């Protein structure tokens, strides 16, 4: 694992990186289980295998920065600081959820975390991110807006319109392409004539980087470099993180489009054991840290499920709530 990264790799930080990745992994394993129990319904898109991307990028963000994500956003929400219990309650559709139960798995929102969803329209969140950055710039705030999307979104026209707008207006946006090689069942080479996604950024004069999305340290280092320049007012940056989705696209996917062997090959690069073993070898993480994380996370998730279970259903009379401001209702 590279150590070139300009990242302060002390024990506390290594433990935190591992903890965050494990939290996402375990949280989602539980979600899959709860989905089969029909506690969670609708579409459920798991991030399993891609955890290093959200964890690495979020390290570079401060509390006043903004985040826009996709329908595959449980991990981003967790790392951004939305509590596991509120996320779980949201997936149960309970009003104690982070979106009051209205959104479910694909629409996690949180005002305090400046987490603007949770968008289920592919590329639909990208213009919103550009606008958030425009607002920050016009109001003289040195914030960055991190915008996550998959490589499949790069084929959508809005992706291009927005890269151009962000570059043209030199907006503080960090575009993060989570390139997991598939858009549902469509392999990258069948969706893009140019498969180097980050190369597209160049056609808008946006500096870009390509990193191993299975290596949390590399991702963090690249994100730190990008956000530093963004805060310095140097305009948008683009990060392509090569990663892989270990599980199905959603719970309805028979995965006819890829070989089991390919999945196995990628599982060998699982970002969690990879980082854990490296950090332990480097003496940054100890056995007891790993054990402690395991226990903490198990506790957190059990508590989250209990919270969601104990949550309440919004009354039917509220059906028309949240369509417009109260005084307009």
């Amino acid at each position, binding site marked *: 694992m590279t150590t070139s990264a300009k990242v302060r790799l002390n024990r506390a930080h290594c433990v935190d990186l591992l903890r965050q990745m494990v939290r996402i992994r375990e949280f989602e394993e539980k979600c899959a289980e709860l989905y089969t129990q029909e506690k969670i*319904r*609708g*579409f459920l898109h798991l991030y399993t295998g891609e955890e290093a991307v959200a964890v690495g990028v979020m390290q570079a963000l401060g509390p006043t920065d903004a985040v826009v994500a996709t329908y595959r956003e449980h991990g981003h929400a967790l790392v951004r600081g939305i509590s596991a219990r509120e996320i779980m309650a949201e997936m149960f*559709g*309970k009003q104690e959820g982070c979106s009051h*139960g*209205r*959104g*479910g798995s*694909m*629409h996690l929102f949180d005002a305090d975390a400046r987490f603007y969803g949770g*968008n*289920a*329209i*592919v*590329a*639909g969140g990208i213009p919103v991110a550009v606008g958030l950055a425009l607002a920050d710039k016009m109001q003289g705030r040195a914030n960055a807006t991190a915008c996550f999307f998959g490589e*499949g*979104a790069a*084929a*959508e*026209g809005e992706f291009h319109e927005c890269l151009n707008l962000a570059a043209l207006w030199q907006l503080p946006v960090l575009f993060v392409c989570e390139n997991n090689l598939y*858009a*549902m*069942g*469509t*392999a990258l080479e*069948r*969706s*893009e004539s140019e498969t180097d996604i980050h190369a597209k950024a160049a056609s808008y004069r946006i500096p870009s980087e390509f990193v191993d999305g299975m290596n949390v340290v590399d991702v963090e280092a690249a994100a730190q470099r990008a956000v530093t320049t963004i805060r310095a007012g140097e305009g948008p940056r683009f990060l392509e993180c090569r990663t892989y989705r270990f599980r199905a696209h959603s719970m*309805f*996917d*028979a995965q*006819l*489009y890829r070989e089991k062997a390919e999945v196995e090959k990628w599982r060998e690069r699982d970002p969690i054991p990879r980082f854990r073993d490296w950090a332990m070898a480097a003496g940054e993480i100890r056995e007891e840290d790993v054990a402690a994380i395991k226990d903490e996370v198990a506790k957190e998730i059990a508590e989250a499920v209990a919270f969601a279970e104990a949550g309440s*259903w*919004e009354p*039917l009379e509220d*059906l*028309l709530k*949240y*369509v417009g401001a109260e005084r307009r209702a």
Partner: protein
Amino acid sequence: MTEMTYRDAMRSAMREALQRDPRVFLMGEDVGRYGGCYAVSKGLLDEFGPERIRDTPLSEGGFTGAGIGAALGGMRPIVEVMTCNFSLLSLDQIMNNAATIRHMSGGQFNVPIVIRMATGGGRQLAAQHSHSLEGWYAHIPGIRVLAPGTVQDARSMLASALADPDPVLIFENVMLYNGTADIDEAAVVDIDSAAIRREGQDVSLITYGGSLRKALDAAERLASEGISVEVLDLRVLRPLDDDAILASVTKTRRAVIVDEGWRSGSLSAEVTTRIVEGGFWNLDAPIARVCSAEVPIPYPKHLEDAALPSVDRVIAAVRSVVGK
């Protein structure tokens, strides 16, 4: 007669079209390797190959427009826009090109394209994935809009749509795919008329697509209360079959319209107005509508159920109209 699901009926219809006419091809997101997001095109790739079962990138506007161009170029494309929720990205191409090129060219060109999309709520997919936009599309001159509500229509409408020289949109309600029925695979259906799915005397229940099942269930339950309900399946949302609508209302003199679109500006308003314009400005009872509540569809089941038309709401509406 063969028993099959609505999903298999759509697939069987596409297979037949692909076998019969070399100009026909299917294009859309994940129609090939993935087998279609609702498994409608599963297996077709192996049978017809990647040229004719063409996976597209996520570019709704681009590939819908490419379908229009391919139709102008002599092909008979079936473009699948995964769901109508994403069709907003194709709408400029549909309204400004597909629906207008015949007109703008003074009749020199026509666009024989079929655009299929899934529609409707009920699967807890929340605010961005539960739209029912077929009524909206029915506003556009230059296109024909179909809503197969039965397995037979799912099997038979496509052939008629492909034979149409102009653009035809087919809306497949997501709650219908698993439904099964005994159908005649060889049947030929028109794409002009509405169909009476149940005869009745007291009230006309006018509906289509995903709400048809609910209307029939309501009619069944109401029969036990001595209320005789006629269920009219519109089938074709543009152009509307005024004759069938008025014939039924002439008989019953009462009407309830069930439409999964958001109430205001939904197709139910046009149907109501056609009845009024058809001379029924003096009915035995007000016309009632059962539509979706005017709210982005919420995720939780209890709220989604409350937002969408339900058998109970249909029954209540019918009772209010017949005054029982």
